[in-house]
């Protein structure tokens, strides 16, 4: 990346569609059916996230980080990928995992506080809790694919806060050195819990981190599904063709609390929320689709309702799936439990057998 390219990109995030759904650039080449599917997924993601928040409030689900506001980045990072591609994300990337192919019932099942069910074929790493860590795994997957000669792209997703971690920066460096087929997706939603973006780093755009590691980068409007899709698609094509890594910073906003355990009124202003509410990603896509005649108002309403029902069905499925036995932990640690673990398994079973009264 030359300095000229660099300075040109510093002014504003890349946009294809403005917040009123008007095109200001050329939209990516997406078939109408796929576009509607992507739009539908945004509805599903919002409905699904809201359902889990509600379940958590009822004490039925564990801590959940709302996906509200992240619908365009969720879909935009996943939609351009091929089935053989990989994703490594955090709790906030459940939407991307869904579009990549992970069963949403399994995502909901995990939120019951049970060991997860992942479909191996979806190629989504287990949800990462230790911030920043997964990005190195994404790079490792990319390196491995390159070593094996597989046409695989690996996407590492993380938040703005995660860019402060050493691992994020080491990941950029490894990706640069090994020219790994990796896309770094920094979902900049303005906050890392209570820490606003400008207190996380003295740099204007986090994507500029790429400069110091020799990794090309781009800053995109994360509420513009077209911009995210087009940028990820370009980066994926390049990576697949041996062109190496790309760092994409998508500017969006966390419309909800950090998680169900958080109270954002302690640290952020309603005005800021209102400002970003106007820019949220579903609205502008709706305006665009209606304008283009791909959707009527009535169809749109129906779609939203269908996805509400879909989300409920998925949650129901999850809550009707039987949990694993308590001693599953001994099979999950190593492929073959050690003799000591087997003894501990017996200990656990004995604990289960004996009622609390009869110790």
């Amino acid at each position, binding site marked *: 990346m030359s300095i000229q390219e660099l300075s040109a990109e510093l002014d504003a995030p890349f946009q294809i569609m403005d917040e009123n759904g008007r095109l200001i650039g050329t939209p990516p080449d997406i078939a109408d059916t796929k576009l509607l599917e992507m739009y539908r997924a945004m509805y599903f993601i919002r409905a699904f996230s809201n359902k889990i928040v509600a379940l958590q409030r009822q004490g039925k689900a564990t*801590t959940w980080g709302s996906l509200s506001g992240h619908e365009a980045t969720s879909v935009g990072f996943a939609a351009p990928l091929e089935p053989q591609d990989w994703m490594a994300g955090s709790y906030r990337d459940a939407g991307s995992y869904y579009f990549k192919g992970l069963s949403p019932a399994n995502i909901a099942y995990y939120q019951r*506080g*049970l060991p997860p069910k992942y479909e191996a074929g979806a190629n989504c790493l287990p949800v990462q809790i230790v911030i920043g860590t997964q990005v190195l795994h994404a790079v490792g997957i990319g390196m491995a694919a390159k070593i094996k000669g597989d046409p695989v792209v690996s996407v590492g997703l993380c938040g703005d806060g995660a860019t*402060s971690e050493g691992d994020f920066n080491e990941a950029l460096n490894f990706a640069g050195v090994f020219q790994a087929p990796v896309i770094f997706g920094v979902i900049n939603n303005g906050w890392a*819990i*209570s*820490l606003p973006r400008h207190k996380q780093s003295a740099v204007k755009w986090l994507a500029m981190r790429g400069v110091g590691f020799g990794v090309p980068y781009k800053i995109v409007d994360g509420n513009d599904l077209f911009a995210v899709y087009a940028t990820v698609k370009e980066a994926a094509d390049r990576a697949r063709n041996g062109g190496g890594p790309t760092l994409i910073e998508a500017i969006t906003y966390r419309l909800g609390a950090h998680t169900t355990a958080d109270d954002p009124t*302690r640290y952020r202003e309603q005005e800021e929320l209102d400002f970003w509410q106007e820019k949220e990603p579903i609205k502008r896509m709706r305006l665009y689709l209606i304008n283009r005649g791909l959707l009527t108002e009535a169809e749109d309403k129906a779609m939203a309702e269908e996805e509400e029902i879909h989300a409920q069905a998925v949650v129901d499925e999850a809550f009707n799936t039987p949990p694993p036995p308590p001693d599953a*932990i001994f099979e999950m640690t190593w492929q073959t439990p050690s003799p000591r673990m087997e003894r501990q398994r017996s200990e656990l079973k004995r604990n289960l057998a004996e009622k609390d009264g009869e*110790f």
Partner: protein
Amino acid sequence: MKMTMIEALNQALEQEMSKDDRVIVMGEDVGKNGGVFRVTDRLQARFGEKRVFDTPLAESGIMGTAVGMAVYGLRPIAEIQFAGFLYVSMNQLVSQAARMRFRSAGVYSCPMVVRAPYGGGVRTPELHSDSLEGVFLQTPGLKVVIPSNPYDAKGLLVSAIEDPDPVIFLENIKLYRSVRLEVPEERYNIPLGKAAIVQEGSDLTLISYGAMVAVAQEAARMVKEKSGASLEIIDLRTIWPMDEETIVASVEKTGRAVIISEAPRAGGVSAEITAIINEQCLYSLLKPVARVTGFDTPFPSPGLEDYYLPTPARVARAIVETLEA
């Protein structure tokens, strides 16, 4: 006044900061947000952004800059949002903070406190419940403190802040708000390295710390009700250096011991206590020391944690077995 552990800790921080300009508080979300558990609530408003500040999301950065500050002459109190993330800062903690005095042959020291919540039973996400105290027995140079109640929490935190060497102060999440206890308004110390005998007894010694003290107490109550056995309960308070004297004196008296810890069993605190008893009072021992602990697997998902954590019934069974002739 009756206080929760959070309130007691908050008061200790406030009083130490008032008393000593060198004390500063740093970490993720400790400022305006007052920490995700509110332990640092209102401190930034009171002492300003210079002395109470949010850091970027980087545990090694937090730990490493705290080391520099401590060497320079401040008394940093660094919060790591959950103890499981101490691993991210492990090198700065065990190779740096723990060794500054050693590495400089005493010319520099590193008087800092690392606070971190830990512990199971509250349905937290992965790595939010892990108990790390046992790891630090093998990484010399660190003191490790775990209070079991609001009163101890305040007095121990004061001592930790005053200590000339680095102290890891682990706060059990389940205890944060579940118990209110009378806590004096004024400043007081509870010395590091001294255990408390929370219940005297003659038949068996229960050794525990953190949230497991209450489990021990409940188990003791259950056993006493059933068999009338007289149980001594030790709360370690400081994990390292360990109060071996109190442990040994008790086991010499009772001849039997049960250790309770929610950490994995292998090679941690429960193993070291067993080894201490073996070395110093084997001949008084009438039965094998029993360890009621987590299993040697990672801490499980919330839905399975109840089977992993020691319960009063599990402890009671171990007591009964150990009491058998």
